[in-house]
């Protein structure tokens, strides 16, 4: 057998007290697609960042194509033929595709000749791999699918033989993801080695030859993809049996609790982000809004919850109007029974440097039970926080710990416990499981279904199609600021995917 493309021996890395990688040994055969799965924080990205020279391992050796390699910086990795497509694209937003591709690989001090050379090389790569993209387009004008293609081109332009992709499908529509997989298979056919990091089991099953599972910084298993199952991988990832499907009783929807009529929202530049959207959410049902990120879901959520002003339209909460075009007050809406789990918990849901118990009452801190005269009743607040920690299984169970020190899943549970324990009539939830590991996802999903069964109206916005499909009683698809279709929970992924890409949008609107 020829040399393996990559061989890792005993890689170990700690960040302070966090042991991110524990003695990891892994062999990736050349010319294969190798999947690495694991929950968030399992150490996948750290391992790959070590391979790409972003961090140095504390211990351990790396062999590339049989040779021992000291990878001290990204340029070492590039020189060894390793390319990386990062989860957050490493592109300069106001540069052209061509400029981004040559950045760092210009060759000569003057751009004129290097640009000309890059243009013809890019043409060749585009032809060979089906990676068409206009070399003179500005990055920020391109859809994310194409931006990702630029990242792949960047790596190939540098002569990458080994391509690492970190969570590549997080930002893609199902159709774009399928296209990406076709590109990866084509690259494999050309003899490239591909390492695919993901937490989506479906992708692993779809394209990989082998798969390695990481849990809590350790590599727990490597399997041939053909010889394993989704259930086995999920169990390896979490360390216990996981229910992948949410169990749900049939829907019994009651009165309309949230009603949105002709809502139009513009952003600060005057661009219409939400365009005449109307829908109802009834008591005892979960309405899911599917869509690729950036199609107006964020603005819709923020407007309904009183954070952003609408240009026109109206919203009714249990039949009473909400002043969405001006004067809506999130605190007032909370008192009227609307709870909000924001999409971005770091930006809106939590104050990370605060202690857990402080975050657990944010927004509800004016309630009498947390007050002693004009002052906060610290004992009552901590007692309350301890009860929530218990009930939501938040770990570590320490209400005095700084919120930043909790994992993503536990941070999300802090937000959920705060909002759900207020016993709201209407629950607005954005991206409830973004950056949350499989075990916590299961927990969060069960809680959401519980809310519904208790007769609450739940509006769920998520870019995870699986989540939308398994939780929702009705699915609305948003594209370019409009609702382009409504489907039942039995809608196929392909059907929703087309709607999300705007393909059937025109017909649906007509």
């Amino acid at each position, binding site marked *: 057998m020829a040399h393996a493309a990559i061989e890792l021996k005993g890689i170990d890395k700690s960040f302070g007290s966090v042991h991110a990688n524990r003695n990891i040994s892994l062999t990736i055969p050349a010319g294969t697609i190798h999947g690495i799965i694991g929950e968030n924080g399992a150490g996948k990205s750290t391992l790959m960042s070590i391979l790409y020279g972003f961090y140095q391992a504390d211990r351990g050796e790396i062999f590339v194509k049989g040779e021992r390699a000291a990878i001290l*910086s*990204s340029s070492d990795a590039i020189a060894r033929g390793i390319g990386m497509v990062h989860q957050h694209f*490493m*592109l300069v937003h*106001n*540069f052209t595709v061509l400029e981004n591709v040559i950045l760092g690989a210009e060759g000569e001090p003057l751009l*004129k000749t290097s640009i000309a050379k890059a243009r013809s090389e890019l043409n060749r790569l585009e032809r060979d791999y089906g990676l068409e993209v206009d070399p003179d387009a500005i990055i920020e004008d391109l859809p994310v699918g194409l931006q990702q293609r630029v990242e792949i081109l960047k790596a190939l332009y540098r002569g990458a033989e080994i391509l690492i992709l970190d969570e590549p499908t997080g930002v893609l529509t199902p159709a774009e993801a399928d296209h990406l997989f076709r590109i990866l298979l084509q690259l494999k056919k050309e003899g490239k080695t591909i390492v695919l990091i993901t937490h989506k089991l479906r992708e692993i099953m779809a394209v990989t030859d082998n798969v390695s599972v990481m849990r809590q910084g350790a590599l727990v298993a490597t399997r041939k993809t053909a010889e394993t199952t989704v259930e086995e991988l999920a169990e390896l990832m979490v360390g216990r049996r996981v229910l992948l499907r949410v169990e749900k009783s049939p829907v019994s929807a009651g009165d309309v609790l949230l009603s949105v009529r002709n809502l139009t929202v513009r952003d600060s530049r005057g661009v219409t982000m939400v365009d005449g959207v109307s829908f109802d959410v009834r008591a005892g049902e979960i309405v899911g809004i599917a869509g690729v990120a950036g199609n107006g879901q964020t603005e819709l959520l923020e407007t309904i919850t009183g954070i952003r002003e609408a240009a026109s339209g109206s919203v009714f909460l249990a039949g009473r109007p909400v002043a969405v075009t001006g004067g809506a007050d999130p605190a007032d809406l909370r008192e009227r029974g609307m709870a909000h789990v924001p999409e971005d918990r770091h930006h809106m849901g939590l104050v990370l440097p605060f202690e857990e118990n402080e975050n657990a009452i944010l927004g509800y801190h004016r309630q009498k039970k947390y007050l002693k005269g004009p002052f906060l009743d610290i004992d009552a607040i901590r007692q309350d926080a301890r009860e929530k920690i218990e009930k939501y299984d938040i770990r570590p169970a320490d209400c005095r710990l700084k919120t930043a020190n909790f994992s993503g899943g536990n941070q999300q549970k802090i937000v959920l416990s705060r909002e759900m324990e207020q016993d709201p009539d209407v629950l607005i939830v954005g991206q409830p499981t973004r950056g949350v590991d499989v075990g916590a996802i299961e927990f969060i999903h069960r809680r959401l279904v519980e809310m519904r069964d208790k007769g609450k109206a739940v509006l769920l916005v998520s870019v995870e199609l699986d989540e939308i499909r398994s939780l929702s009683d009705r699915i609305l698809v948003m594209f370019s600021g409009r609702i382009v279709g409504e489907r039942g929970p039995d809608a196929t992924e392909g059907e929703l995917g087309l709607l999300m890409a705007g393909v059937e949008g025109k017909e649906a609107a007509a």
Partner: protein
Amino acid sequence: MQLFDTLVFLLDSTVRLSVPLLLAALAGLYSERSGVFDIGLEGKMLAGAFAAGAAAAVTGSAWVGLIAAVAISLLLSLVHGFASITHRGNQIVSGVAINFIAAGSTIILGQAWFSQGGRTPLLSDDARLGAIRLPFAEAVADVPIIGQIYSDLLSGHSILAYVAFLMVPFTWWVLFRTRFGLRLRAVGENPAAVDTAGISVAWLRYRAVMCTGILTGLAGTYLALSQNAGFVKDMTAGRGFIALAALIFAKWRPVPVMFACLLFGFLDAFSIRIQGTPLPFIGQVPVQFMQALPYILTVVLLAGFIGQAIPPRAGGVPYVKER
């Protein structure tokens, strides 16, 4: 011809007054394009002016003055770099500190060394960077209009004035036609992209702030050795801040920077020219108002007339790898 003479005179002063602004604004352009905000242009310029005045007074050589100015200004820019690149400190705080250091130490050192109330001794013409007569300037001076423009407006400036205006196309070329420029612009927008491409973010930014140091040194030299004959305390008089305004006004692009500086220079020249002359319909305008005019205009322009000026996206943010 009276009006034409006045106009040539006015434009000539415009050029003279915009040179230090232009050098300082271009200096700021290098630093800010790389993502390091520099509010310390004023201080570096002032320290440069003092170094130029002092060194030229002691040695009698303008060139030694120039080298001293560049050296001191470069040193201060490296201090700013050390604080904000290596130690990821707050760039505004570091810049303000440099301004205070320069304002205080120039006066103290000036008084200690020369005992003239914080100024450096008056320089003879040999120790200054005086006017350069372009070839044939005398010969064509009498040719109407064109000759006058050539000999009065284009000729007769300090070498640094020509350098300043040549720096405009040169900076454009560096920024948009060279590898260094591409990387410089990239590091100001998304340093992580530069880092993952295998280029050192810190070294790139250091080189950018060094460019800034050299150019503010030249700006200071111009003030002390060309516009004046020696250093006078606080002689920058806010020009570093006006240059910063010009930079924002021009949206961090070299050619618009030149026009912005010429505009501010013109307002300055105009306010000097108009002092004491009653204006038609308005009558006598207080001197103070005319002196304030460039600054008022700056506020008005920045407040609304230039559209949104979007700074380099990573500007002001120290680069830290994830985690």
